[in-house]
């Protein structure tokens, strides 16, 4: 038993580190650090996207022939980890992790040629049309309909929680093309251009004051039948393929440990108000230590999954476990950050972005300026991408056999 990387993997890690050192600018790092929403703002995210694109590293999860890197699971893990440790912006997963792999797996050669290069280059920005007002965890009950008219699908209905719809060029959407069959069997997967009169986007303000998600309304919106992925009625199996990717993030620990390290630093400089620093209060100190232990354990849990992957075994629903643990540990960190930063952490600025020249002056510290926004936004971590309740149902059934 050992938890060491091979010498080849260490050489790869050093290559990644050197690349990050040379290409990850302070502006990008600052933008990432001071973006308290779940998704990074497109200006920062796409700048980093294009740098990685030029390096050929933007799509580690794609097949090599479609523009992927051809990395082993361990290399992918190392890359993700090093990016996290270096404080790189998170890329938008919508094109690269969600619709991209779907097109790679289910698209025709023509669809691949048309869409994949523009996802890689960052020329197209994507959003996801899955959830509907009445269909959250019970996704298969979705109602948005599409009917074929000539060579086009005509789409009516609405989608909700559509992240960055207001930035997107395309939406990939699950639609109902047959209402007469079993609900899962009547669903089709369509790619739809956003820039058309049949689509309107309404912001849904979050309680943090951010505008990330939207409602998207389709009123006789159109897309060519050529933009259907797979066959009619195949949408549900494509959706499941995609959800596995969405839930497949298996590298939470590095970012969590980075956040904890920052709190440990801050705890040494924040006065407790009764002499000494907060970090010396055994109650706070122990809470922070307990979260660190949880994140350190998660780091190994992730490595254990990686070791399975590297042996060519499917990790299966263990990704649900990582999602469950990672999001909950993140929320505990958010709570500790609020505690730690005291009265200053109550500020909730509404200006965005909080980086760059236009950013408002923080009250107290930059950490305090974003602490509340992070706390509020990150309540979503246990809701979106498969809620805690859904993950627990999955694990109970598939892992525990209940």
């Amino acid at each position, binding site marked *: 038993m050992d938890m060491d990387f091979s010498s080849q993997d260490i050489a790869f890690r050093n290559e990644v580190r050197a690349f990050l050192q040379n290409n990850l600018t302070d502006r990008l790092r600052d933008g990432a650090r001071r973006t308290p929403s779940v998704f990074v703002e497109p200006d920062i995210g796409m700048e980093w996207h294009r740098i990685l694109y030029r390096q050929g590293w933007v799509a580690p999860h794609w097949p090599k022939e479609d523009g992927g890197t051809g990395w082993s699971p361990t290399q992918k893990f190392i890359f993700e980890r090093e990016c996290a440790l270096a404080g790189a912006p998170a890329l938008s997963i919508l094109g690269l992790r969600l619709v991209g792999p779907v097109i790679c797996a289910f698209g025709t050669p023509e669809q691949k040629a048309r869409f994949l290069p523009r996802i890689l280059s960052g020329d197209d920005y994507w959003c996801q049309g899955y*959830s509907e007002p*009445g269909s*959250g*965890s*019970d996704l298969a*009950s979705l109602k948005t309909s599409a009917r074929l008219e000539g060579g086009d699908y005509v789409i009516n209905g609405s989608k*909700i*929680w559509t992240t960055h719809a207001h930035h997107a060029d395309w939406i990939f959407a699950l639609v109902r093309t047959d209402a007469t069959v079993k609900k899962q069997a009547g669903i089709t997967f369509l790619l739809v251009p956003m820039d058309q009169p049949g689509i309107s986007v309404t912001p*849904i*303000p*979050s*309680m943090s*004051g951010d505008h990330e*998600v939207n409602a998207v309304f389709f009123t006789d919106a159109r897309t060519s039948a050529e933009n259907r992925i797979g066959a009619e009625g195949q949408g549900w199996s494509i959706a499941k393929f995609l959800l596995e990717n969405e839930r497949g993030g298996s590298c939470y620990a590095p970012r969590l440990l980075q956040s904890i390290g920052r709190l440990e630093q801050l705890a040494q400089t*924040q*006065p*407790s*108000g*009764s002499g000494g620093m907060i970090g010396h*209060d055994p*109650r*706070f100190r122990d809470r922070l230590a307990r979260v660190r232990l949880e994140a350190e354990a998660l780091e190994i849990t992730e490595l254990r999954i990686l070791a399975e992957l590297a042996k060519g075994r499917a990790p299966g629903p263990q990704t649900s476990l990582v999602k469950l643990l990672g999001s909950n540990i993140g929320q505990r960190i958010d709570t500790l950050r*609020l*505690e730690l930063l*005291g*009265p*200053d952490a*109550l*500020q*909730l*600025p*509404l200006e965005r972005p909080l980086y760059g020249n236009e950013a408002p002056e923080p*009250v*107290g510290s930059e950490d305090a300026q974003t602490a*509340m926004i992070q*706390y*509020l*936004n990150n*309540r*979503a971590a*246990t*809701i*979106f991408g498969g*809620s*805690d*309740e859904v993950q*627990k149902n999955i694990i109970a059934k598939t892992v525990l056999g209940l």
Partner: protein
Amino acid sequence: MNFDLSDEHHMFVSAIERFAAPIDVAARRRLRLSPAGYDRARWTQLADMGLIALAAGADAGGLGGSAVDLALVAQAIGAANAPDPLIELGILPALLLERGGAGAALEGVLAGTTIATLAWTERGQRYSLNATGMKADQNADGFALTGEKTMVPGALLADLFIVTADVGGATACFLVPKDAPGLCLRAYRLADGSIAGELTLARTPATARLALDNAGLAAMAADMRLYAAAEMVGLSQRLLDDTLAYVKQREQFGIAIGSFQALQHRLVDCYARQEQSRSMLYRAMLTDRADAATWHRAAAGAKAFIGENSNAIAREAVQMHGGMGITDELAIGHALKRVLVLDRLFGDADTALADYALAA
């Protein structure tokens, strides 16, 4: 022994309900997004209802409400998810000005024509009441104040600042009007949508010193802890009620999500927390005030206990509302944010719990 509301209490509560009813979530958002985070005309209405005057004795021009009366009013404000900073900008200055003997200022506060606020928080002092970053120097004309305060509630509404400052090692309270020389205010927004401020004074003359010592400040803090706890009990009741209603009507997989046993058991935990919070509020507000230490301890314990419960209920309310819970379009998010602010008013849970434990 009687835990029923009196007729008079019912009257207060329905008055607040009527006053808050027109402010739906959209109106609440608009109000909070306005530059001062609140509306002065609405404040006058609140004062006209006598809700601020409750906090002062009849001799001082008030209506002589008891701690029980004020706690029930604060609870009703919470239950209505009302946007009104009654406890910070109404009850708090009224108590201080009456106990500190500032009758003239008090009159305006009770009438709602003067808005006064207490500037006590200092960055380096966290939740402590001891002023060290603001010094009061005595001169021929009285006192001049120099230093910094943060998280001053209602910064852009206030006509009058009550500022705690160090005078030879003790902490005293001074009155400083908003247009005093050397006063500089930087406003910022808090989680509950209100506007707080960083206040800087540079040799700013105080118009008066309140007749209030450290013990008087501690008593005020105990009062405020009780009222913050009371508003949180109201807020968490609202959060729980809204969540129960939601899980009964929201369907997934063809059935109401409230029929899922895992949610049911968690909702029972929330219900148990809420009943215990309510009991703890009653305990603290009915505690005999003859012995200051006993009563301060009860208030500290109640705030720590209720803060923890209300936060837990708020988090579950958001989780069970799913995506809707994290928007700004339901009472849920607004109530959660107000709980976060109140939980830190005059000490967070750790501070209040330590005060409770150490006073044993």
